């Protein structure tokens, strides 16, 4: 048992470190380091522009999408090298946020199902960040129940005509392309009538409307499709096989290891270390210490769980299922951490403006963004189902709509 790199890993790390040190946008390092959930803007620069510039620079030097094949804009690196890169990239990795969906989900789906000429055309600019992609799955009638989606695709000659609405589409407002899951046959059971496409988000008939979130910010969108035409060669997988194609996408989402989920703990520990309560330093208060200790072991437990997965990668093995707990644990933890940080502030906790609030309002921002982490990318409940079914081998839910033609499934409870 050790935490040492193999000689090859050490060499790779040294090369990555040297390149990052010479090329990273250091002027933003401190600000990025201090950013936390709900608060990732830069004061004097547009973070999207900074992120795109950094991604392009990485791509030009062969440091983008490391695990992708070279011909598609990657480096052909091993999974462990990708993890080492992430470790070395450190706070600059936060600039990759806008590319996560494209690199983590759209790219791998394209790689698995797109025609060769499309892969060569679309993947390199996706890797370099010149083009941003989004994923159009969720709908008002199909969130956790993605297969309940209603957006129609109807064949018209060599094209498909799309009508319907997507929702919770991260980054659609700055995306160039998207992968789109549609219903092509409503007369068969819901999982069987789906088909996947990719499309140009600038196509006529696509309308993107940002959603104002509970936090006040807008990271997600509604996307409306009115007679949008997609050529058949942009279909991904067979007609009616969209569900299986989407599983590839979602598997990739859950396989991303080492990205490091944020728990809010380092921020809270730092805060409590200097905070004075009425009776003395917060860090010396029994109740505070107990809370901190409980969160400390969750945060360290996640850290070392991820290291176990990395070790498996390092040995060329497939990581076990233990990594599936990350989002579930971190999501509700960061919400609890933010709530507690405000509790420690007393009445002053209500003040959230960065100029007037405690520690520039980072915990207020965290509190308001946190509910989303428990919903996006699979709700806590879906994550528990996944652990129960795929890890523990418990039976799947009894699905009353499983064998019913989609257009016969009731749409209202009463």
């Amino acid at each position: 048992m050790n935490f040492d790199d193999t000689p090859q890993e050490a060499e790779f790390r040294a090369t990555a470190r040297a390149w990052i040190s010479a090329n990273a946008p250091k002027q933003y390092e401190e600000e990025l380091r201090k950013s936390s959930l709900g608060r990732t803007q830069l004061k004097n620069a547009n973070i999207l522009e900074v992120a795109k510039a950094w991604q392009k620079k990485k791509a030009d030097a062969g440091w983008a999408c490391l695990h992708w094949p070279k011909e598609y804009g990657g480096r052909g690196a091993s999974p462990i090298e990708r993890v080492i890169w992430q470790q070395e990239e450190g706070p600059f990795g936060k600039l990759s946020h806008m590319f996560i969906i494209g690199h983590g989900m759209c790219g791998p789906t394209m790689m698995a199902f797109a025609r060769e000429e499309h892969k060569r055309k679309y993947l390199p600019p996706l890797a370099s960040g010149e083009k941003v992609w989004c994923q159009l799955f969720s709908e008002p009638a199909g969130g956790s129940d993605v297969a309940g989606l209603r957006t129609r695709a109807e064949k018209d000659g060599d094209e498909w005509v799309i009508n319907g609405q997507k929702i919770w589409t991260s980054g659609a407002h700055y995306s160039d392309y998207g992968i789109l899951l549609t219903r092509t046959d409503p007369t068969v059971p819901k999982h069987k009538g789906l088909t996947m496409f990719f499309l140009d988000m600038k196509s006529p008939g696509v309308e993107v409307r940002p959603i104002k979130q509970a936090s006040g910010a807008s990271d997600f969108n509604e996307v409306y499709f009115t007679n949008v035409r997609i050529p058949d060669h942009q279909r991904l997988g067979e007609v009616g096989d969209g569900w299986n194609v989407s599983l590839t996408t979602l598997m990739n989402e859950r396989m991303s290891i080492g990205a490091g989920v944020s728990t809010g703990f380092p921020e809270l520990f730092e805060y409590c270390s200097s905070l004075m309560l009425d009776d003395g330093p917060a860090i010396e208060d029994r109740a505070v210490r107990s809370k901190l200790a409980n969160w400390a072991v969750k945060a360290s437990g996640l850290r070392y769980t991820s290291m176990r997965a990395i070790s498996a990668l390092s040995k060329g093995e497939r990581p076990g299922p233990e990594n599936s707990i990350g989002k579930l644990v971190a999501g509700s933890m960061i919400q609890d951490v933010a709530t507690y940080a405000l509790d420690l502030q007393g009445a002053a906790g209500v003040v959230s403006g960065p100029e007037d609030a405690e520690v520039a309002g980072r915990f207020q921002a965290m509190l308001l963004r946190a509910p989303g982490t428990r919903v996006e990318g699979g709700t806590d409940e879906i994550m528990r189902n996944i652990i129960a079914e795929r890890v523990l081998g418990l039976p799947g839910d009894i699905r009353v709509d499983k064998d019913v033609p989609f257009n016969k499934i009731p749409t209202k409870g009463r």
Partner: protein
Amino acid sequence: MNFDFSDDQKQLRDQARKFLAEKCSPKAVRVVLDGKAPYDKELWKGLAEMGFLGVAIPEEFGGAGAGHLELCVIAEEMGRANAPVPFSSTVYLAAEALLIAGSDAQKKKWLPAIASGEAIGTLALFEGKGNPSPKNVKLTAANGVLNGVKKPVADGAIADFAVVAARTGSNGRDGDISLFLVDLKAGGVEVKNLTNLDPTRGQAEITFKDCKAEPLGAAGEGWSILTQVLDRAAVLCAFEQVGGADRALEMGRDYALDRIAFGRQIGSFQAVKHMLADMYVSATLARSNSYYGAWALSTNAAELPEAAAAARISATQAFQHCAKNNIQVHGGMGFTWEFDCHMYYRRANTMALGLGSLSYWEDQLIDRMRKKNAA
């Protein structure tokens, strides 16, 4: 990076699991649970023969001379099997105290006897309510004899010797405490069995009356040695707890698959599935924290104090959580003497207290994290 046990260590774990499945079935555990024997003597002998008791004891003292990582994988299996033997008292506490502070003669006398299964050892630290603290040690040592009462002492009634914490000063500081080694069969002690939460592991009250004792380690160094012993034991116990948590989770899972209610497997209800998923989450966090503790223990890293506290807290929580909800999954049957669920519940809640309570270790963890940050 290789943050995992080696293939040899995993093989040792499999070997221990197989051995314990055969020699330490729930039926065997119940002999002790029902009070028909103070511990499983046959199993103890078998563990010695397998080399498990002395796995981390150097060869020159009769052990296998493997290491703490090997001991960790065996500990996990001991916890999984809920073994009714004085393993933790003897191997994690007494043997480790000897390894840290024993003179050559003391090591020669006791360590080979531990490895061969001839001697059972324990640590006599607590004196009634309270957590590990120099101020809670009232038993006195003067002129080579001890006077005072220790309780509870794990496995105290079956132990051949004890490492005893005694007061040798009155400054109210760590330096007031010294450790002593007492041959419990040599007279000067009265031992009383205490009814306790987990009958598969005995607890005793030991009264020392002018009891002859020899110093273990330097005078005034007792608290510093104890702290090291408790840290090591925290990691090793964490592995037992992880093993117990995993077993409790498995039992719950298996029952949820087997039991039909409302015309379906109860494991198909989300209320049950989610409870089991949460048990998996805490068991996984505990395992990962314990692995880090194992690394720190095996390399004697500067991170050991913090890693040990984290492993202790996480594993304590996980075992309690899994043992408690295993009963819940079983419903009424889980609350019967006949089903094995309560054995894990008892063990989980006993282990949660043995080295100091959860709140004590929470406090320790924060102290140690602050120290690290200050450094």
